[in-house]
């Protein structure tokens, strides 16, 4: 579409400005002109020298259009620091011109907004639009090339995902801020092992919200002075046409021949047709009384409160549930038909209930697609296809009716049961010196053993507890109980700020350890194909692609960081005394961390010596 300059053009303050496009537009119901330059959006009111709207496009975040075909032709621009944004209505005399102008503006604004979006998501976890250092900037610049409106590249998507993961995990965001922003780790390293978080976020983002299931029911709102007011949005119109095809028919037949659109809606909301289509009770206040309307009343249908609903959706019933199938068998019994089975208690509610049913059926059909039809085809096999009595066999047969031969039970035979038996010979411990006994020695041993168990009463009566030993035992046990108690006694809490320093040191060291072992150990196997297709192609490639040299470099870097961890811990321990915390306690708290760090460093030193 060619650039189109129309309408009164007011003199610009500095005449050398080069506008990309301009158009007559109203803002706040005032007539004026809208100008767009590569970096600014300006709106000037007619006759007023100073433009009230003059914003930089750096912070533009989104644009919204009004519906095609709905007048007036609107455009709304929203900024990151101004959520409300600015709303303009293109005021060219002919609607097609206004549409063309709006399309022009949209075409120019869209790449700017996309560029802004990529720049925004390039900075991890922070709102301002200043781009962050690191590998994300080349990605953002790549996506900002003009001529690609509306299509965010894979890198941009990836950054958006990372940002959403950080937003939902605040502790991860804190760790990220500590390590990546301060430059110790790079972005890709940070996300190296956390691909599962990203794939979860990706799956969540890919979920689409389904249709709203609420029945369309615009309620009139009472304005001041008793006027009833209903806001008609294009979306509402669309929903009404979908829900009540009668109204769509009435509209297509009468507008714009018999009445204008606004007149149609005004009369519709006051007519009996609207009252019939309601989904809730209406108040009987005087302004809500329905007026008879000659045109719209032609579309009225009689109320749906007979004993059978007018619209029966599924004529095909599952044969197993079909009560009517055996009706001919019941005629001779002489019983009357069951007249107590009336639908609904009051007749007035029946139309409402049936409307709900119709609505639910429509929703189900939309959601499930063609499945009900397929089922129907199967059920009507008697009429359209060859009747296959085995169609229902699977549903009729019950497992209990089948005579399984009484099973004698399944013998649980452990394969390699020798592994589990305890009768094999025990492995002798290293220090066990089993004296080789001669048979006579064995016999003597056994005889002695047997003698010990005979005649129990004598030693029982002669039993005297050894006094000193008993006292010693008592002392020992009491001492051990005391020790246990002392160990479990609650220690005074560490001050919060100091504790936070300790925890950040610990988490940072953990992260370095993770990266170190990730670089040193063999890489994990590739994920099974189910997950590989969901879009992890980008991240999968970069994960497996670390070459040996890169891994060695990473290991070296991490080893350097780990060596510094020891110093950090020492600093904390010496600071502990100043905080009023026992330094030994702090050192003990870091004990496991230090042993892990030592192990890693030892391994690294060994490897370096080898190579």
């Amino acid at each position, binding site marked *: 579409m060619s650039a189109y300059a129309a309408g009164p053009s007011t003199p610009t303050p500095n005449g050398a400005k080069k506008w990309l496009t301009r158009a007559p537009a109203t803002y706040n119901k005032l007539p004026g002109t809208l100008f767009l330059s590569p970096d600014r959006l300006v709106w000037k009111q007619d006759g007023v020298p100073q433009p009230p709207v003059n914003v930089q496009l750096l912070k533009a975040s989104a644009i919204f259009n009004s519906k095609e075909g709905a007048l007036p032709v609107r455009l709304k621009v929203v900024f990151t620091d101004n959520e409300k944004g600015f709303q303009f209505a293109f005021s060219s005399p002919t609607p097609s011109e206004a549409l063309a102008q709006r399309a022009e503006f949209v075409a120019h604004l869209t790449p700017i907004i996309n560029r802004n979006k990529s720049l925004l998501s390039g900075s991890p976890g922070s709102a301002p639009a200043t781009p962050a250092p690191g590998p994300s900037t080349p990605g953002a610049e790549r996506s900002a090339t003009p001529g690609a409106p509306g299509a965010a590249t894979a890198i941009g998507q990836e950054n958006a995902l990372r940002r959403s993961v950080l937003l939902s995990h605040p502790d991860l965001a804190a760790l990220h801020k500590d390590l990546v922003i301060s430059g110790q780790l790079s972005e890709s390293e940070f996300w190296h092992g956390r691909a599962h978080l990203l794939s979860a976020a990706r799956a969540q983002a890919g979920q689409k919200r389904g249709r709203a299931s609420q029945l369309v029911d615009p309620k009139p709102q009472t304005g001041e002075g008793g006027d009833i007011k209903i806001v008609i949005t294009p979306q509402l119109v669309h929903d009404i046409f979908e829900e009540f095809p009668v109204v769509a028919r009435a509209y297509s037949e009468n507008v714009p021949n018999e009445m204008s659109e606004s007149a149609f809606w005004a009369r519709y909301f006051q007519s009996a047709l609207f009252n019939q289509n309601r989904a809730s009770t209406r108040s009987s206040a005087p302004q809500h009384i329905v007026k008879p309307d000659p045109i719209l009343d032609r579309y009225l249908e009689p109320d749906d409160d007979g004993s059978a609903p007018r619209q029966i959706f599924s004529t095909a019933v599952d044969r197993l549930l079909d009560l009517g199938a055996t009706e001919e068998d019941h005629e001779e019994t002489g019983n009357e038909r069951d007249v107590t089975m009336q639908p609904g208690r009051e007749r007035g509610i029946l139309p409402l209930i049936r409307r709900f049913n119709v609505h639910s059926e429509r929703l189900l059909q939309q959601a499930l697609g063609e499945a009900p039809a397929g089922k129907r085809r199967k059920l009507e096999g008697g009429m359209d296809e060859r009747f296959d009595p085995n169609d229902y066999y699977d549903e009729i047969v019950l497992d209990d009716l089948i005579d399984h031969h009484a099973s004698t039970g399944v013998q649980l035979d452990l394969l390699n049961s020798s592994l589990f038996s305890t009768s094999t010979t*025990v492995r002798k411990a290293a220090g066990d010196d089993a004296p080789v006994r001669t048979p006579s020695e064995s016999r003597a041993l*056994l005889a*002695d*053993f047997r003698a*010990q168990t005979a005649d*129990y*009463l004598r030693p029982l009566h002669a039993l005297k507890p050894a006094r000193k030993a008993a006292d010693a035992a008592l002392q*020992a046990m009491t001492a051990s109980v005391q020790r246990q108690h002392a160990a479990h006694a609650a220690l005074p809490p560490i001050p919060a700020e100091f504790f936070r320093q300790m925890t950040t040191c610990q988490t940072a060291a953990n992260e370095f350890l993770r990266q170190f072992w990730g670089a040193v150990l063999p890489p994990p196997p590739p994920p099974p194909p189910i997950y590989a297709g969901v879009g992890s192609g980008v991240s999968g490639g970069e994960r497996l692609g670390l070459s040996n040299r890169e891994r060695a470099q990473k290991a070296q870097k991490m080893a350097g960081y780990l060596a510094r961890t020891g110093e950090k811990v020492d600093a904390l321990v010496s600071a502990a005394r100043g905080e009023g915390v026992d330094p030994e306690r702090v050192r003990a708290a870091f004990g496991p961390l230090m042993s892990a760090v030592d192990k890693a460093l030892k391994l690294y030193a060994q490897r370096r010596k080898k190579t």
Partner: protein
Amino acid sequence: MSLPAHLSLILDLSPVPWTALSHSTPPLSLRAFLAQALVFLNAHLALRNENSVSVFGALPGRSVGLYPPPGRGHGHGRRQAGGEEEGSGGGDENTFHVFGQADEGLMSRVEEEVAGLEEVEEDTPPALVGALTKSLCYINRLSNPPPPLNPTNAAPAPPHARIVLFSVSQDASMAYIPFMNCIFSAQKLKVPIDVCKLDDSEVIFLHQASHLTGGAFVHIDQREALLQYLSMCFLSETETRKTLAVPTQDKVDFRAACFCHKEIVDIGYVCSVCLSIFCTPVAQCSTCHTKFSPDTLLRFGGSATNGHSNGTTA
């Protein structure tokens, strides 16, 4: 009114460790041990009228129920050679009949079993696990009594049970899997297993047993004062233990035995399906027959580093 308590003793009656123990310093002979155990038993029975006791013995290669005598009615003990009065209950009249019954019944069975030992079997470990299992079955039977013949009578309340295990030898890592199963059953039945360690060898699994079931593990230093230890640590009932501070050994060694060689391992390989432990990577899990992927095996088998703990399989 609290429930009656049931005490179950598990004695290790293998000749070789006892001989070694009686020659060590300070010595503890089987005779002295049995005397003190009987006093402990009687003390338990004296605490309440409805208290009951059961004893199981572990001999090399087999386990037996010692008291109540299986298959025989109560109170038909053999007469002692000490020339007591002839009576239907046995024992002299100066002894409380409950004590007499229990002591007599137990000792006669012990004598019987020990007399049945034919030869010294050096290598066969005592069947502690078998005895433990039988004890748990007995306790289970007590806890779920058969319905009374007369439906109007209320069924007697099942007692609180606990097990005291006397250990004189090293624990057999052969019996790791059945032993762990016993521990889990004891957990389900809420039966604490107390362990009384008389000698100085390493027992890892008994530690774990007492820790997992909430019992006490006591290593006896002063062997002559065994009774002191018994009455201080093991006599109190489960309910009372909550208010008493029972001395127990806190540091528990949580190592396990590998399923392929029955050796105790620090770091091993765990099947992610059935959680069985192996000391070296295997191609197929022996318990659940899951095939492990060859990539994983390459990683573990071929990696130069060792000691990366607990690799799990895909």
